[in-house]
């Protein structure tokens, strides 16, 4: 079950939001429940400390206490890293990226457009619910790795190859439409999926995305045209793969 938290310090707005949420849950008969609706961020943290949950959080950014909603979001992440966080804010323009990258917020709702709020809340509930259900019985495989504070997730089907950087322990993941660096070891990555093949001391290639192999130049052309390198030691194994 997805548990809903609401933290908004204006009592009137809080009851309004709570009503929107509970109405929608009832009408659609969703597998959700409002467990905390409060003006005090401590209540949310207390609940999380005592219960293991996957939550949907509606948080006001400007709480009338020392802690901002964003800080609260970051704290929530320590207990619930799968949960969906939605910020409710007055200054729409200025904090979108911070929401996304500081706490991996799912969405944000602006109070400036008063009429929209209900619709936006319903949108968020739908998205969070879909995401929750998909995670529960999912067959889309995602490569995930944690690097420092950051969680990196890339679909296996998008991965082209991994390359070591000149800096020790740093790896560059090349995917269609994304290049991302993280800390790890090629050896560990190789063991994560059978699609991966060590084609060079410094490269691990995703076999599914190979377009063709140039044996004489020892180059692998990927489906998007990018070139990955192979060394003669691993070339023979590669030949077998391409022929099958």
């Amino acid at each position, binding site marked *: 079950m997805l548990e809903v938290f609401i933290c908004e310090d204006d009592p009137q707005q809080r009851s309004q939001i709570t009503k929107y949420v509970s109405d929608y849950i009832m009408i659609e008969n969703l597998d959700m429940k409002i467990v905390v609706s409060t003006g005090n961020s401590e209540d949310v943290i207390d609940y999380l400390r005592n219960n293991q949950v996957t939550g949907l959080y509606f948080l006001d950014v400007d709480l009338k206490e020392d802690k*901002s909603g*964003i800080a609260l979001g970051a704290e929530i992440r320590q207990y619930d890293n799968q949960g969906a966080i939605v910020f409710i804010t007055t200054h729409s*323009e*200025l*904090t*979108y*990226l*911070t929401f996304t*990258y*500081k706490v991996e917020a799912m969405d944000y709702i602006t109070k400036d457009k008063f009429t929209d709020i209900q619709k936006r809340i319903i949108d968020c509930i739908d998205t969070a619910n879909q995401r929750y259900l998909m995670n529960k019985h*999912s*067959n889309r*495989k*995602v*490569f*995930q*790795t*944690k*690097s*420092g*504070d*950051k969680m*990196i997730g890339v679909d296996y089907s998008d991965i082209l190859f991994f390359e070591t*950087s*000149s*800096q*020790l*322990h*740093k790896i560059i993941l*090349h995917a*269609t*439409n*994304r*290049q*991302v*660096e*993280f*800390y*790890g070891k090629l050896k*560990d*990555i190789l063991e*994560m*999926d059978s699609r991966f093949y060590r084609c060079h001391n410094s490269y691990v290639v995703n076999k599914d995305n190979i377009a063709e192999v140039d044996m004489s130049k020892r180059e692998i052309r990927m489906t*998007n*045209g*990018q070139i990955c390198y192979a060394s003669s030691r691993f070339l023979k194994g590669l030949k077998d793969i391409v022929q099958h």
Partner: protein
Amino acid sequence: MITFIASLIQMATFCFSIPILMKRRIGLGLSLIMLAGSLTIGLALLPLMGAMSSLVILVFLIGCVYYMSRRWLLSIIVAVIPMILVVVSDYVIALFAQQVFDLSNADMQDKYLVSGVTGIMLLTFALSYLGRYLFGTMRDHEPFFRRYGALLTAMVIITLLIFYLNIWIGQQQGFSNENIRANSILFLFYFILLVVVCVVLIRIMMKETNLQNKQVQYERLTEYTENLEQLYMDMQKFRHDYINILLTMSEYIRSGDMERLERYFNDRIMPISQGMQSNNYKLGTLHNVKLQELKGILSSKLIKAQELKIDAVIEVVEPIEQVSMDSVQLCRCVGILLDNAIEEAVHCETPSVRVAVIKRDQSVLIAVTNSCRSDTPELYRIFERGFSTKGTNRGLGLSNLKEIVAKSESTTLDTQILNGEFIQLLEVYGSPVTTKSRMTG
């Protein structure tokens, strides 16, 4: 046999000083090729040309290093310096042997060849580490290297030529003890002089670059201050208008003229609230950036973006006091990120550039996003050296950025194209990180 071992050690000295100097590992394959190649050349030419065969080996080594680094000046310098070091070490050892153990040059050539050559090797490696320190500081300052690289190359080549000219003359005279001693002292002093001149030169030039950086930074901050003053003036104007507005409104209310009140509200008051969202306010949170250099570059680039009619916004929610990266490098990275974002955004229908500086538990994240055209080329092409959507001779930016990040131990770059947005995340960690990967289904 002895000659072979001695040559092997000598060639190993040449080949392995190069990676020491470059501060970079070269593959086993390449080292073996370098070693075998120079050994073959050395053994083949030594009987014919004597000491001059080293110059042929030098050309070969330059070729090898160029194959690895693809940069001419760099390869010439890192191949020539070990030669100079070997010559200096050679003469120092010879001098040492003469003075302390009273061995003649002939003795050295016959009986103690291997130990002599080993001594040369050790001394050369020690000098290489010293050289790496000097050379490393120079290479860290890319513009510096670009400007004075040619001069430096000329200097080391001339030094080497002078050394070999002397050796050649010595060879003609049959390497008498006096000749060796004279040469040793000459070389040693010349070498020390060269090092001192280099150090002084580097010092002066570093100072100059620092001064230039300060100047640029000052100009940027001035621009920012002007921007703030403008903002302050706007506020003043607004405060002045505010009272008048209230007076007018109260007058309409008192007379109950709802129609004119509404018109007045729509015509006069709504535009003001629109003005609140205007460009100047979008840089408001920049005050949270406490690093002057970073603030300077962010403000100057974003103001430039706004002048180009780009919707440029910055978000800095928490105060940023520290980013664990050399400030010159950091500003270069941020400059490249923003230049790139602005260049691309300008071509869009609704151009926007959005920047955020976000403090996280272990790191500071600089996020730059911009709107991009739908026909953006494949991501990997954008990073290629010399690639640019604007024809040749541009597009060094992103490949330079990648190079800087690759050199840095605690910085990572994440680039993606998502829903018509180009997103670049530069993450600077407080300390180097190691982590485990895991898979979820």
